[in-house]
């Protein structure tokens, strides 16, 4: 039967494009810049996109249900500030981290309740929370960077390494793995896909779609909070202005990875690849000492190209009868 083949083919193709794209730009940069092709630099790249991947891993599942979270960036800032404030107040870092995490999770909880239970459109709910969160971050920090009396050990999460690999890289591996499993092997993953694929079907199968969405928002909130802690750890300070436009980088990575805004099929790996493409571009372009304004233009071009190729693949998949060919 063609069906199974079609499915496999589809999945592979789409990843292949990103992988191919990655290879090409990697080769290009390696040739163009003497400093690019080095383990340490790849660690830099991983570090620079760690937060995006970590949050994106969960957000991918959320987008598979047809929802998204614009408040992630504000959550990052708020959590970071709270974390720093607690640390400043002398709370042991671990405890402070837990409290901050709880706070960020609560943030996701509100998002989840608004969208999952009260049926507020995700755009409005999370955009509103984006403003509120940003505002709160500025209020609690009184708009200034929280840095005095912060124990230097805070930096360790960001700068430390394990077996020669930065913690952040390990985190990427860990979270991507976890959420791959969740996506492929768990009820949550299946039901998320069902919710986005055909809400009625999910509903009639007795799946509580509201709860799925709610849970995923909470998860994304927690992940964003964790990213917030990492952000604070990066500078050893809580900056209420950090994580600005973070949510876009996340959504961009997810969509590059081939997950549709409308929900349905999606893949965590795709998100990882998408984030890497952007990160490698940023890093490489800086290596080539390209003027920042050109960088943004090139970035735009590459984005469109990647999506175009995705579309082509989708179309191909459709031709092979994956989706119902409609006029």
């Amino acid at each position, binding site marked *: 039967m063609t069906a199974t083949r079609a499915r496999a083919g589809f999945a592979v193709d789409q990843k292949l*494009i990103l992988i*191919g*794209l990655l290879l*090409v*730009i990697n080769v*290009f940069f390696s040739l*163009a810049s003497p*400093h690019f092709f*080095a383990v*340490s*630099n790849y660690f*830099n790249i991983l*570090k*620079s996109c760690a*937060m995006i991947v970590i949050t994106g891993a969960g957000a991918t599942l959320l987008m598979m249900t047809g929802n998204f979270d614009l408040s992630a960036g504000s959550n990052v800032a708020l959590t970071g500030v709270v974390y720093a404030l607690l640390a400043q107040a002398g709370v042991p870092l671990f405890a402070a981290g837990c409290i901050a995490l709880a706070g960020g999770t609560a943030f996701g909880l509100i998002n989840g309740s608004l969208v999952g239970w009260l049926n507020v459109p995700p755009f409005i709910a999370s955009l509103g929370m984006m403003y509120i969160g940003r505002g709160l971050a*500025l209020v609690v920090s*009184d*708009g*200034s*960077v*929280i*840095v*005095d009396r*912060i124990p230097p050990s805070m*930096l360790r999460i960001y*700068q430390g390494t394990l077996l020669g690999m930065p913690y952040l890289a390990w985190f990427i591996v860990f979270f991507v793995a976890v959420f791959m499993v969740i996506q492929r092997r768990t009820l949550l993953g299946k039901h998320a896909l069902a919710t986005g694929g055909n809400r009625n079907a999910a509903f009639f199968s007795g799946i509580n779609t509201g709860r799925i969405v709610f849970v995923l928002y909470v998860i994304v909130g927690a992940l964003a909070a964790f990213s917030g802690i990492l*952000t604070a750890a*990066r*500078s*050893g*300070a*809580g*900056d209420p*202005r*950090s*994580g*600005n*436009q973070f949510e876009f980088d996340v959504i961009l990575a997810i969509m590059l990875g081939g997950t549709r805004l409308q929900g349905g099929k999606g893949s965590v790996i795709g998100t990882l690849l998408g984030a890497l493409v952007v990160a490698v571009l*940023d*890093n490489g*372009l*800086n*290596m*080539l*000492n*390209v*003027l*920042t*304004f*050109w960088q943004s*233009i*090139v970035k735009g*071009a*590459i984005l469109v*190209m990647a999506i*175009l*190729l995705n579309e*082509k*693949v989708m179309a*191909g998949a459709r031709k092979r009868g994956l989706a119902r060919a409609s006029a």
Partner: protein
Amino acid sequence: MKKILLAALILSVAVAALVLVGCAKKTDEGYVGGKPTYVVGHIVYTMEAQYHQGIAKQIVEYGKKMYNAKVIVLDAQGKDEVAMSAVENLIQQKVQAISLHYPNTGLTTAAIKMAREKGIPMVTTLIRPSERIAPHVQPLEGPSSQMMGEVAAKQWLAAHPGVTCRVFILDFGKFPQIEEMRTGAFFQGVKNVDPKAVLVGQLNGFSSTEKSMQITLDALQKEPRINIIFGGNDEMGLGALAACQQVGRGKMKDGVPLTEVIAGLDANISAMAQIYNPNSSFKLTHGAVRDNAIAEMDTMIGMITGKIDPKKYAETQVLSREFDYWNSTMEEAQRFLEVNYLFTGSLKDEVAKAAK
């Protein structure tokens, strides 16, 4: 279909590549003996502001001329993550020294330490890091800001005896050091002249002329008696001016303030053109571009050659030159612009145009 994919892929990547090479090329020529003696990095808080672009240009120019040094300029785009990966990026590119301007004081400290581990000395500028462990270049903004405040108040009171100074300030949203060196100092200056002076309001102008205009409009609505406005940088000052003119104010008669006095900061061309226009009420600014850049460059080279101890906090202070309609001549301004902003035109003409 596969063919189409491949073709599209290769084609578009190729195009992108060409663009890159195209703009990467031109930075790498004109060094004595074909290659630079030193390679250093300079991280800009954001290339959006004319002031910061100005400094960047100066460092590149001066570095090349003076030390045959190549300066890699990276833009932090006002984002922590970008700033940090910029530092990592420079370390990766094995530069010999880095100069960094970023308002997150914690991040700058962390960056200094990170670079130091890799044996790369770093100098900070404009915003002092949270820990004073490395050389720092600081324009003396405080005194100049205060002086501007005094001049503004004097001029206002001279023209309107007995009318208390009502000050409105546009800032970047509460940065302590900005408070200390710019907004606070300015208001202090006003108070020195007019003890009864009141601060009507201080709001974030997001260093955008557009937003500053809107906010100033609201401020003037709230308190029409505002008569001294200070913009945390020239962009905001111009916004304030635009707002005043929108509501039929912003006027002077041969330097005699009719409606209010506006001050900015950075001393860039657009500000100067208004300052020497006898009819507009934007009249004061101050700034240091070239000297700041020179100090940064010298410090970096000094640290590389071992003349300066990269682990010791030493503040190189540069004068932030104050300009106003009453106490500084257009010729001085012309020279300042030429030196600092590589200005090639003639200020006189600009003013003439603006005054039309």
